[in-house]
């Protein structure tokens, strides 16, 4: 049956059809929907793990147990899971193990633009890369075959465009794969030096065989055009841009297998043309490989650079000198950056932090938007969990004065992911730091995924819920307070008290995300224009529902959810 599917949805379909049984992932844009879609098939067990390392170890354990298994993550998640990845490369698998990593070319929703192919090369694990939804389904099924044939995990590299574009997919029935027999085999699965040395020999031999496989694999494809003046080597989404921009003006070698890459196939293709252009997003990995195998009539990065996405216009411009006509207005069109939603519980907290003028060590999630104007409240954002451990280091460096003027902010899901180990460090190594957990009872930014604090699992069924207060106390934090960020005065008072305390403390700022379906909204507020003096105190909150018309505040009733923090700000009683 033909269906229009997101790349991620087609990926999940591939998992289903391949007889995958166990799925464990951590959400991260643009990878999240693979696991959400996988959870809709009852034949697969699917879960959100607390972080990517746990997810990968879970999937590896299931593979060793004999079940075809999967874990998915975004590019930076693979850094967290790099530890199990590099050794899973040594152990290999029992039943097939497939790993999805979704790169975010153009940084639509990420803190960096790293190229995950480096991890595949460094861990000596094969990586394949689809270029549309149909290939997502096909490649995933093939990935399980490669995994079992070559005794290796297989990484499927996605990108924002492939993950979040819909195209037509032909579906097939599921092929069940019964549990494979599990046999104790320490030489293969106990990676202490004596055994790991043997496995490293195996890994190098496996890479040699995989390179041989890449020469003839259906994953790599040559498309010869008789009228071509030059050849293009490309991969992933870039293939689609190349085909659209160049049509039959170029012959194309499409690499579906990006680690290891073929040698003879590339040498033969490059031998047909004087000029070979490599069109690849981010780093010049294919181009370097060409030089390594003595193919020197290639160029690519000198034309396309290392930054952001490529598209058909860029290719047509750079390679054919063609540009499309377009018109624009003379007016300056103001940018529209993402903002915290109307009624977002994070807003009140950041308003208080800005007012107090403290240094804020930030983290990854919706609350990163607290860095944007007009709140401008965040000083640093690095990676998952870095708010807490970074604050500890900041305070160790700057001492007692800093300890009373700085906080870390971290969401509930991010705290469970890798924030709590930082809190252990604060308690254990005794810095007088103040940590604020923004508990909005969901993983927000990635589109509402459950996590270990919410009391529900991926399927929405009841699950054990971590009690954050008790957890922080068990870690060794004696001062644990809970505030409602809709109550600004109380929130500010508690933050002041904890900053002035002479020991470490945790403040849990608790209020569910305003977008959650079960959250009841109050009636929208409106401004009494007779009472409004246009002082703009309410505008300092940065609420997208409030704007100024004719020097008075107005509230957009379609956006306002009646959270009331603007009402608390208004000294003239104009908001009701």
């Amino acid at each position: 049956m033909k269906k229009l599917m997101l790349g991620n949805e087609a990926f999940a379909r591939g998992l289903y059809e391949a007889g995958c049984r166990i799925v464990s992932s951590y959400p991260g844009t643009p990878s999240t929907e693979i696991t959400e879609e996988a959870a809709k098939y009852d034949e697969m067990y699917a879960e959100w793990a607390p972080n990517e390392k746990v997810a990968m170890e879970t999937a590896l354990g299931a593979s060793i147990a004999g079940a075809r298994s999967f874990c998915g993550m975004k590019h930076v998640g693979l850094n967290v899971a790099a530890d199990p990845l590099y050794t899973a490369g040594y152990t290999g698998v029992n039943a097939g193990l497939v790993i999805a990593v979704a790169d975010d070319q153009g940084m639509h929703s990420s803190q960096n633009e790293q190229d995950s192919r480096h991890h595949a090369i460094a861990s000596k694990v094969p990586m394949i890369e689809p270029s549309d939804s149909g290939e997502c389904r096909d490649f995933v099924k093939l990935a399980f075959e490669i995994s079992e044939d070559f005794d290796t995990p297989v990484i499927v590299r996605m990108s924002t465009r492939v993950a979040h574009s819909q195209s037509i997919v032909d579906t097939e029935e599921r092929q069940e794969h019964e549990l494979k027999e599990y046999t104790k085999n320490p030489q293969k699965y106990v990676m202490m030096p004596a055994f790991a040395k043997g496995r490293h020999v195996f890994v190098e031999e496996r890479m040699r065989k995989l390179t041989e496989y890449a020469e003839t694999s259906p994953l790599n494809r040559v498309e010869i055009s008789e009228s071509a003046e030059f050849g293009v080597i490309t991969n992933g989404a870039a293939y689609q841009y190349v085909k659209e921009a160049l049509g039959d003006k170029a012959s194309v070698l499409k690499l579906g297998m990006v680690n290891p890459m073929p040698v003879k196939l590339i040498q033969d293709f490059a031998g047909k043309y004087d000029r070979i252009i490599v069109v690849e997003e981010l780093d010049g990995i294919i181009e370097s490989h060409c030089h390594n195998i003595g193919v020197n009539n290639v160029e690519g990065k000198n034309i396309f650079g290392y930054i952001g996405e490529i598209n058909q216009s860029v290719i047509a411009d750079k390679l054919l000198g063609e540009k499309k006509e377009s018109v624009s207005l003379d007016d300056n069109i103001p940018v529209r950056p993402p903002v915290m939603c109307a009624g977002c519980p994070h807003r009140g907290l950041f308003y208080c932090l800005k007012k107090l003028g403290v240094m804020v060590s930030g983290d990854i999630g919706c609350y990163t938007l607290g860095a944007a104007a007009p709140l401008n409240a965040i000083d640093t954002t690095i990676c998952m969990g870095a708010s807490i451990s970074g604050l500890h280091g900041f305070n160790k460096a700057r001492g007692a004065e800093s300890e009373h003027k700085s906080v870390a902010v971290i969401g509930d899901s991010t705290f469970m992911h890798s924030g709590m180990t930082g809190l252990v460090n604060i308690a254990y190594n005794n810095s007088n730091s103040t940590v604020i957990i923004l508990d909005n009872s969901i993983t927000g930014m990635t589109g509402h995924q459950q996590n270990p604090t919410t009391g529900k699992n991926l399927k929405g069924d009841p699950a054990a819920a971590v009690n954050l207060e008790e957890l922080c106390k068990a870690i060794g934090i004696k001062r644990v307070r809970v505030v409602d960020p809709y109550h600004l005065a109380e929130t500010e008072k508690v933050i002041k008290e904890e900053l002035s305390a002479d020991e470490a403390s945790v403040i849990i700022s608790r209020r569910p995300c305003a977008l959650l379906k079960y959250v009841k909204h109050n009636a929208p507020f409106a401004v009494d224009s007779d009472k409004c003096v246009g002082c703009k105190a309410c505008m300092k909150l940065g609420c997208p529902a409030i704007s100024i018309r004719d020097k008075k505040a107005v509230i957009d009733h379609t956006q306002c959810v009646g959270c009331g923090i603007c009402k608390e700000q208004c000294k003239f009683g104009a908001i009701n």
Partner: protein
Amino acid sequence: METKSIMIVGVGGQGSLLASRIIGNVLLSQGYDVKVSEVHGMSQRGGSVVTYVKYGDKVYSPVIEKGEADAVISFELLEAARCLPYLKKGGKLITSTQQIDPMPVITGTAQYPENLVEKLKSAGADITAVDALSLAEQAGTSKASNVVLMGVLASKMDFPDEIWQNALEQCVPAKFLELNKKAFELGKNA
């Protein structure tokens, strides 16, 4: 058939994903090759959101670049102005007249440009401006602006009405179907 390109633009949270699903469904039922490219994640939080829909005999790239769109459908006026450069010469611009201030306007560091509909007209755009928000509220909820604009689009495309109705039935949850069908009709007749 040569590939056709439709761009759907608006502000995160206005329902562009549903709109693109409806169009995608219509095009698929007509036997075209179809690609739809969406934006998820951070940009959805009140930022500019762009969705691309492309169809034809064979579609390669899922994205639309400047000067390539046969039609731009905008849920918000400033976003229509922002995306004007993507419109092909002679392409159609369908926009809601709704205005949502972006944060730089709210904080006072930028101005929301005035008389945008007139300016877009004089820039040569074949523009249809509709008060989609009022029509949606007339249908029962401000959230149905997206479907009102699908109605406007339907009136400019040559697909039979039943195809659009089927797409609505497949893409909209049953309990909101009647309301959305009403919004669609209001858009079609706008």
